[in-house]
């Protein structure tokens, strides 16, 4: 009898545990999500607050679109947005076009100082931008690249290229040379081998790296601050303007930032599938 009692007790405990476990897990995840998303939420909330209510309300306030009107209609925000898109997008496109062959060469061919070259490329990311900005500024002024799309896109390669090269190189190294040789024996020309056989295999890594590169380029602050400003203005620089000399218009900064984040969020959601797979290496072995 007591034995039976114990049994049902333990099974009852088990069933309670079974209910509690997912609840606890979801609760934990929810808490973490709130913690992680709070800055974003706070930013969106601020975007709807008027300057008057900025400091004395938390969640309860009178929502207003005044900030949006001020930013979107009152300033040339859209121009900056578009120019940022051109610069960051252009930088990523050039990075992919130049970086993928570079990664292939570093993965496949043996040449002198190969590892040194690879490390040199990576080391571009080590130095803080502020360290190199002055010489670049002087050079750009001299050769007429200052305040041009081309100049910015070029210098953005420092940010975008190393990441892509190193990620994609790892992918190329994972593909055995024999796969390429087999494709050649099957009668494909080198560019068919590249586009039909290799590109599908490196695509996850390439897409993930390109997305991260895009985010870095989109958010870049130091380079556009120093190297442009009159003809070309990126969003990060424009957002500065709402910090006026007398007061900081937090609402307008929040609006500028919220809209600036949108393309990144949209692109990330779009290629989430690749992003998860892409940064976990060795996914193409087979």
């Amino acid at each position, binding site marked *: 009898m007591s034995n039976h009692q114990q049994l049902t007790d333990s099974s009852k405990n088990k069933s309670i545990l079974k209910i509690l476990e997912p609840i606890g897990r979801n609760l934990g995840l929810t808490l973490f999500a709130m913690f992680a998303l709070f800055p974003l939420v706070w930013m969106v909330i601020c975007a709807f607050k008027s300057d008057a209510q900025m400091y004395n309300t938390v969640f309860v306030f009178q929502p207003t679109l005044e900030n949006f009107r001020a930013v979107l209609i009152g300033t040339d925000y859209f121009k900056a947005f578009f120019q940022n898109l051109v610069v960051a997008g252009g930088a990523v496109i050039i990075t992919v076009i130049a970086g993928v062959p570079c990664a292939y060469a570093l993965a496949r061919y043996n040449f002198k100082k190969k590892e040194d070259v690879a490390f040199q490329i990576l080391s571009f990311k080590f130095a803080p931008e502020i360290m190199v900005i002055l010489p670049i500024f002087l050079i750009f002024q001299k050769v007429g690249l200052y305040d041009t799309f081309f100049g910015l896109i070029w210098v953005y390669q420092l940010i975008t290229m190393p990441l892509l090269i190193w990620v994609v190189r790892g992918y190329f190294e994972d593909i055995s040379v024999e796969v390429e*040789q*087999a494709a050649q*024996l*099957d*009668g494909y020309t080198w560019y068919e081998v590249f586009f039909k056989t290799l590109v599908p295999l490196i695509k996850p890594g390439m897409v993930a790296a390109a997305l991260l590169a895009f985010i870095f380029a989109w958010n870049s602050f130091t380079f556009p601050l120093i190297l442009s400003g009159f003809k070309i203005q990126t969003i990060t620089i424009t957002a500065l303007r709402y910090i006026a000399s007398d007061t900081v218009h937090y609402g307008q900064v929040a609006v500028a930032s919220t809209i600036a984040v949108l393309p990144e969020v949209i692109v990330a959601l779009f290629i989430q599938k690749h992003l998860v797979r892409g940064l976990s290496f060795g996914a193409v*072995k*087979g």
Partner: protein
Amino acid sequence: MAQIELENITKQFGDVKALNNVNLTVRDNEFFVLFGPAGAGKTTLLKTIAGAEFPEKGLVRVGGEIVNHVESKDRNVSMVFENYALYPNLSVFDNIASPMRSRLYKKDEEFIKTAVDKVTKMMKINHLLERKPSQLSNGQRQRVALGRCLVRTPNVFLMDEPLAHLDAKLRHFMRGELKEMQTSINSTTIYVTHDYMEAMSLADRIAVLNHGEIIQIGTAQEMYYTPCNEFVARLFGEPEINILEGKMYIEADDIYFKVLNQDVLLHPAQDTIEALRDAGTNSIHIGMRGNDMQFAFEKPGDEWMEGTVYANEPIGNKVIMTVLIADKKISLTCPNDTVAEMDQKVYVKFNMINAIYFNGETKEFITRNNMSRYTAKKEG
């Protein structure tokens, strides 16, 4: 279908000579096997013919034309890679169809379907067509790779250990299929293996490679009965040939050996005596196959040597007994019902009529009984 000729091929990887001055002619419609230990340069040789590797020196001819500067896609060769080299992003069907979809060897989809169907049925993988290579076992992958090679009708098939990862039964079956196919479609095939049974059963001719050099080219019979040196002799046959270090005594009208510090005198066959006299050394190594020895557990006579049983391994259709004579391990092939205790005394008699003689200093082949039979075959 074409004749393949290699002339003075040398290929280097850094300081390592993968191929050293290789000369080779594979005749039209021949099934040619490259055989040798790991790292001998077999795969490099295949890739040189395929155009995946380019030799530093020498000429590669396919069907009489020099192809050193012809890209591999234009050589019209078909190859099975040792590591399969399947396209991970394509299904089994698409993998096998790939060579027929390239612009160079284009076929219409109807044709592709029947061709893939035929080859996958033969490989017994026709139930896997929709799968990706990552969802297959190694044996299945290997068959897909083989299938992709066989759907074409190239100048030459190059196969790099195409059966190595199959289970024994399937390997045996595929061996038969390959042989059958080779005779029915008349193709030149170069086949790399390190399994001597595969080599002997499939080959019209075999080339033994070691350290990037060709040691011997010949038929399976020649490899087995008249190996050009001890290295080749050791490669063929299971158990491995026993090489006995002997001392030759030449007397006026007699010639005999002593081996393994035993008093027993071994007399060579009559027709080998002349060659042995001319050997120029009295250190002779005697090659003795496991089935060229007799054994007994009671001493039948004076010409039998005494040893002890070191190991006794039944392997199904025979038993391999390892006998220790004067600290030298000798492997014998015994009938299936042989039972022996460890360290039991055993008496062994060498059947000198089948002995193969090697020069003890150079390890080169000297002679064997009934040479004319094997050399005659060579010329024919």
